[in-house]
């Protein structure tokens, strides 16, 4: 299997670095701001997930996932 070229390696790294930064920012924001729980029902789970720190961390996770092995 061919290993990725150096520029490709850096582009993958920059995506993973930005993704990791967003995940860390989401965690710090959640600690500082606090998160609310809205129950176990489907709409409650949606409300719980729909909070700014969780959304920022989720975007970070998406960027890390989509940046892998390009």
């Amino acid at each position: 299997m061919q290993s990725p070229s150096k520029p490709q390696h850096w582009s993958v790294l920059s995506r993973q670095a930005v993704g990791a930064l967003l995940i860390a920012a989401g965690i710090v924001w959640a600690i500082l701001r606090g998160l609310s729980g809205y129950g176990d029902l489907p709409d409650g789970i949606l409300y719980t997930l729909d909070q700014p720190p969780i959304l920022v961390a989720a975007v970070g996770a998406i960027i890390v996932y989509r940046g892998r092995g390009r």
Partner: protein
Amino acid sequence: MILPQIQIARAHWVLGALFLAIILDEYLPIRGRDGRPVRQRSTVIGWALMIGAGGVWATVVFADVVHDMLIHFLWGDLLFAAGALELARRRGVYERPWLDCVLPVAFVGCGILFVAHVWLDPSGQGARWHLAMGLLLIAGGLLELIRLRWRMVAAIPLGLLPLSAFALALIAIPVAAAS
């Protein structure tokens, strides 16, 4: 049907997260095998823009203020047109040089609509917030247009910072400022 303020803010947060994912996926550098920068061609971006347009259009149904309805309708139009053109291009069914300008022009257009929103309702609670977001969008779109025109900076995603700042501002918008 009029939504409570917290639900309006929640919609803004979700749309902010969607735009942050779109902007980072589109503008974070990707280089081809020869080391030269290549443009992201994921069809996900086209779909995401059209989903965002649907979310913005929903305000036309849920808003109780006429200028909110008008501005959100126009935002939805711009995003849907940009999404459709990007989707056609990424599927390979329509390819023109001017399509490079679609996303930057859509960002500038949406930014101008933010400024128009403030102009129509200058005393609104979120006026300063909206103005800042509009200026960030205009700056991001203009920087991307400069990047397209000026080959020397073609490899640097100039608009990435203001566009990411816009999306983060939308995610972080206070409940009282969302409209």
